[in-house]
């Protein structure tokens, strides 16, 4: 019982996921900076940012609708639950069909953030949220297919860590998962909902203080959880923490390369891209069925 509590709360549970995702966010900022020939902030800068945000005043705009406070918290909670469901090297919680739950909780954390943006009743936030919801329709189909491919291939009841490198057997599905991660955590070229230039950070414009910290933390945790999912399903799993760190850092490196290498696409260009991607990844789905 104590060991299970330890696993849920500390390693490889909530505390580990939170701290690792903050550090990874810092590493990504540093890597991106070096690739853009800047010095960049120190890796622990993200901790300072979050501590600062938590200390700030909580401002609730007058026009805010109910759910303004609730949705950011729900977003972080659901993405953490998704993290707990992913078997890193031990299964903490598992039940029949938990992969559906992972897909659901990851989707719901995105949706909750967009609902929070919608609840803030700001014109720019609403446009950002609408874009976010449209993007969900774009990337969710290839993402779901790429999660289901390994599970259907081995006829499993619940998700498990694969020791073989399934990327070699299902490269299209692995690629589609990677590209869906880009859109899920809004890394260029798919940082469309929070477009800084036209929407002033979109859905998060009205958020300050602790609520903004929750939203930022959600994105960081989502990045880390999706990297874990990618490793578990396609990159041969992580037998111990060193392998985990090496593999996750390489995925992070690939994400960072995408971050510095592309301009933002327009939303209809992104939609077209993802629907073509869904067609391509369907080839792998047909192969396993």
């Amino acid at each position: 019982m104590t060991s299970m509590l330890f696993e849920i709360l500390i390693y490889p549970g909530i505390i580990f996921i939170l701290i690792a995702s903050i550090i990874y966010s810092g590493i990504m900022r540093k890597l991106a900076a070096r690739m853009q020939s800047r010095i960049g902030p120190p890796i622990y800068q993200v901790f300072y940012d979050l501590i600062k945000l938590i200390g700030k005043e909580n401002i609730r705009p007058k026009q805010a609708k109910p759910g303004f406070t609730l949705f950011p918290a729900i977003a972080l909670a659901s993405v953490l639950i998704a993290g707990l469901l992913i078997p890193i090297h031990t299964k903490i919680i598992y039940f029949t069909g938990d992969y559906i739950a992972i897909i659901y909780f990851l989707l719901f954390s995105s949706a909750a953030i967009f609902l929070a943006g919608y609840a803030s009743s700001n014109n720019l936030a609403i446009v950002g949220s609408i874009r976010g919801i449209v993007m969900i329709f774009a990337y969710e189909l290839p993402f779901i297919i790429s999660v289901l491919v390994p599970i259907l291939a081995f006829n499993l009841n619940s998700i498990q860590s694969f020791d073989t490198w399934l990327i070699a057997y299902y490269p299209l599905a692995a690629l589609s998962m990677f590209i869906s991660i880009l859109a899920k955590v809004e890394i260029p070229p798919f940082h469309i909902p929070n477009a800084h230039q036209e929407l002033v950070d979109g859905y998060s414009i009205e958020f300050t203080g602790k609520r903004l910290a929750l939203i930022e933390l959600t994105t960081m945790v989502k990045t880390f959880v999706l990297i874990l999912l990618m490793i578990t399903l396609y990159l041969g799993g992580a037998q111990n923490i060193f392998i985990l760190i090496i593999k996750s850092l390489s995925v992070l490196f690939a994400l960072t390369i995408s971050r510095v290498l592309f301009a933002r696409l327009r939303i209809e260009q992104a939609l077209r891209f993802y629907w073509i991607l869904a067609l391509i990844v369907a080839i792998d789905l047909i192969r396993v069925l």
Partner: protein
Amino acid sequence: MNEDTCYTLPLGPQHPALIEPEYLKIHLDGETIVNVDINLGYMHRGIEKALQQRTYQQDQFLIEKICGICSSIHTLTYCNAIEKLLEVDIPERAKYIRMIVAELERLHSHMLWVGIAGYEIGFDTVFHMSWRDRELVMELLENISGKRVGYSMNTIGGVRRDISKDMAENIRTIMDKIDIRLNHYINVFVKDSTITKRTKNTGILTQKDAIKYSAVGPVARASGISCDLRKKAPYLLYDNVDFKEITHNTNDVESRAVVRLKELLESTKIIRQCLHLMQKGELTIKIPDTVPEGETISHGEAPRGEIFYYARSDGTDKPYRIKIRTPTLSNIHSLQAMLKGQQLADLPIIVASIDPCFSCTDRITLLNTRTGMSKSVDATYLKTLKR
């Protein structure tokens, strides 16, 4: 288009896509732009009035502050105007130094624009890289004038500082470096697929519209209009140097980027020729404090387009009137033609594609094009703006 289904989105006065305060009221239908209202006047500084209260010598330093980026071309045009009134001819070496500084300014201004254009389409790497390369030019300018911004090089009757042999050598080596980088950026803007996806066929300004909205500078040249004042009405010694006027006729944002970047290759050519042609000689001539009665105009090719000065003197040491028209004022109206029917996502890059510099633009008169009414800004009008 039914006005009821439209959705109004404010762009500005405070907005990250606009570095300076300006208010664009955007009427949206979904994500498509139906109409744009342009509201100028948030940065009015009363600079033309202030010029009348100071002497000609003091005005040089105030005029530099009109624009932080094209400060040299402003003083250059002003000095040209006053020298015309005084009927003096400045030494040849001073003319070449003025040209070198003006072209260096064009270099750093356009490279800044390349960075902004990258930033506006969400491509931060282009922004960081081009600003890193722009730093080479900024250091050169600091080396020549002692300042990075507002060089105070031009003065009525000549220039303040000389370009020594070491500096000339330094400029030559850096120009070679810049040429390599510029060719790289031209390559990036023409070939990179995510950039061309955003810049090709966006913000179309046809040649007809460009003439109708009186676009100037790179914006007009990107629509195939030849309007480079350095060729059309050479000032200083631009007819002594050999360079091409760049025009491009695809009319879109990419065209504007290509025009600006290719123009810079010509600028480095001009700088090299100026360094070659420069003979030893005086830098300034003596000029009197008072300017004889009369009026004149003067213009120059600023990085953003044609800059226009009108000066009138009443025989004292202070100008009677100085009227300035900056290129953004001519270009900003073409935004209406560019933006209609475009996507909201393309708005920042289209606005940035005219390289707006709003603080230079804001003047005291408001014109309502629909009713043909004009009015001046006064205290009551300012109070109506206050919420």
